[in-house]
């Protein structure tokens, strides 16, 4: 499996949007994709045309003693998707403390017995908990999403100094960064993008995702850019990220 974690450096930077759009671009490139939502905000489902009222998901099933993998479905555009599900806070806390001990996530993925060339995109919440730690450990790449803001620079500095990596050299080595929501007309955005380019050097993807109203519009239609406006600038950039990831995995191999 080609396991990839995508995680916002903090909430709201567009990590779920990136997961949904890159997943569908990879599928458009004839790749087999499973998107596994590990974020309890359960928002990723809305990119995949699930009903707002639909609270089904793997975590909801675990909490209710049902089979977790029965929550998976095939989206209209061919991406397999495992939504998190609607889980209240007490149940979520119990899931984190009791439900995912040992190799929880690894066992889940192994049980699926997916072909080697299948991509597994893990939508990882920005806060570190049992589940997100397991996801980062399993992944061949962790792609962290940044906005070109001083807030993200501060968060990045914090995580590089200790809070995130905790001297985990392997995690540091496999972590890459992508800049999202870059506004062409914003001076400070351009300057922060340059700072990230300078600071991150080879750890930054050579593709920036620019701010584009089409992204919001596609979400409002509960779909992704390749379906809504396939020729938009952002669609081109998400496609470029997908192609870059294919090239990267080709070079480093699959797990």
């Amino acid at each position, binding site marked *: 499996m080609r396991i990839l974690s995508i995680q916002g450096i903090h909430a709201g930077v567009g990590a779920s949007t990136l997961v949904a759009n890159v997943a569908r671009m990879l599928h458009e490139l004839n790749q087999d994709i499973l998107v596994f939502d590990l974020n309890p905000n359960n928002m990723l489902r809305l990119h995949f045309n699930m009903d707002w009222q639909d609270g089904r998901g793997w975590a909801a099933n675990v909490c209710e003693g049902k089979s977790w993998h029965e929550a998976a479905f095939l989206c209209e555009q061919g991406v397999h998707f495992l939504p998190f599900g609607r889980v209240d806070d007490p149940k979520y806390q119990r899931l984190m403390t009791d439900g995912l001990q040992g190799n929880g996530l690894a066992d889940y993925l192994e049980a699926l017995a997916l072909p080697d060339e299948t991509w597994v995109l893990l939508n990882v919440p920005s806060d570190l908990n049992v589940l997100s730690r397991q996801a980062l450990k399993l992944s061949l790449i962790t792609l962290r999403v940044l906005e070109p803001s001083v807030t993200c*620079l501060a968060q990045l500095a914090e995580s590089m100094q200790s809070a995130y990596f905790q001297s985990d050299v392997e995690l540091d080595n496999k972590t890459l960064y992508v800049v999202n929501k870059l506004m062409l007309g914003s001076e400070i955005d351009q*300057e922060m993008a*340059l700072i990230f380019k300078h600071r991150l*050097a080879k750890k930054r993807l050579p593709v920036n995702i620019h701010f584009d109203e089409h992204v919001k519009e596609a979400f409002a239609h509960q779909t992704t850019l390749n379906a809504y406006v396939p020729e938009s600038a952002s669609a081109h950039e998400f*496609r470029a990220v997908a*192609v870059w990831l294919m*090239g990267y995995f080709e070079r480093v191999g699959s797990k």
Partner: protein
Amino acid sequence: MGQIRRVTDRGIAMGGDKIDADALFEAVGIPTDGYIEVEQNDAILRIKNKWPLVREILMSCVKPPENQSDKTT
């Protein structure tokens, strides 16, 4: 650069099961010569001087030289 299997993309003709990853990268506008290293230049210094918090954060991230001795002992 390795080969990418079973790849198709808009407007790119596929020849057999494999294509050259370089061709695919170029088709979507990604430089194929890897990353561009950016040196500490005037633009970076100007940005640091313009935004005090940026300067403060970047200064706190500077790693000490490897041969720096511990002066507390």
